[in-house]
């Protein structure tokens, strides 16, 4: 095993991971965290391109979003877990490629399980069946982000020529 390529088997990680996914997920994580550091009030936050960018994929409710010095992040507490852990986990896989092989048999189950938790909890909050604290939302986001990164890692494990 050298770096991210297992020379004994001919398997490695697809270039898409280095050149597309890792930069893209890093960009989204940076943008998600950035509003408190570039805006000074809620009006600026509301008008910001950071909020607009995520408005299609996150509800951004103020009471379900972490804030720094009173300025919310660009995404809710669950999504910030997803966006934060995705690039971190993908970066880890670059250096610890063999981790993927060890957890490979469980990844689809893990992904399905964490997806189910996020969907059930999200739906229950939506119809006001229960209200999950922000910390738990964050943890569900982190677990789903980690499972997604594992799934992407397996999908991007390729033979040299594929």
């Amino acid at each position, binding site marked *: 095993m050298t770096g991210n390529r297992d020379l004994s088997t001919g398997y490695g990680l*697809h270039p*898409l991971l280095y050149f*597309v*996914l890792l930069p*893209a997920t890093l960009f*989204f994580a940076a943008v998600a965290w950035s509003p408190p550091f570039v805006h000074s*009030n*809620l*009006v600026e936050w*509301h*008008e910001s*391109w950071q909020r*607009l*960018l*995520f*408005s*299609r*994929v*996150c*509800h*951004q*409710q*103020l*009471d379900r979003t972490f804030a720094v010095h009173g300025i919310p992040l660009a995404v809710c507490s669950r999504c910030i877990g997803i966006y934060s852990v995705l690039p971190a986990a993908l970066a880890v896989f670059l250096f610890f490629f063999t981790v993927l092989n060890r957890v490979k048999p469980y990844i689809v189950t893990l992904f399905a399980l964490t997806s189910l938790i996020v*969907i059930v909890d*999200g739906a229950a909050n*939506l119809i006001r069946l229960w209200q999950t604290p922000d910390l738990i939302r964050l943890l569900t986001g982190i677990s789903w982000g980690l499972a997604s990164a594992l*799934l*992407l890692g*397996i*999908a*991007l494990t*390729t*033979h040299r*020529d*594929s």
Partner: protein
Amino acid sequence: MEPVESKSYWNASAKAGVVFGFVVFLISTIGSYITINTEPTGNLFSGTMLASALGCLVAIFGGVLAVKFYINEYGPEMKIGQGAVIGLLTGIVMAVVAQVLALIWPVIDSTYIENLQAALIANIEMSQQIPAAQKEDMIDAIYAQFQNYYSFGTILQGFLMGVVTYGLLNVLSGLLSAKFMGRAPQPEL
């Protein structure tokens, strides 16, 4: 000598992009009407909450459908990178379709923009989370946003935001679909 078959991604991406662009627009518009027809509670994103959460879940299946269309047309042999490109193109088509429909809808329902603007402003006025000093500024900003609904800058911004978000979501779903639904090409001997 037989002609080499050219495998275009556009057919699959366009079909899936149009379908999911329409679906995403539909969900977004339903969310807006929920906001319009709900009594203001002070919650800034009451109606769009459903739309954005569902929109994200639904949008990601555009890449899956596009890869399915591609496999139906050309067979299961495809590289992961091809799935990613199909997903990206699907995301771009989705962004275009959703943006165009969002521009057409206020023509069909002429009171849509006015009602949505009023509903959002009513929510801001009742909000406990926004400091009173900032409410007026935020209302002015929303008013300006709707006044510029048809400006080139607003349209371009909406399109670019759509390309980035739907594009990346569908790159992910496209490459995963290529991995799990497709088959790696066999090297020629």
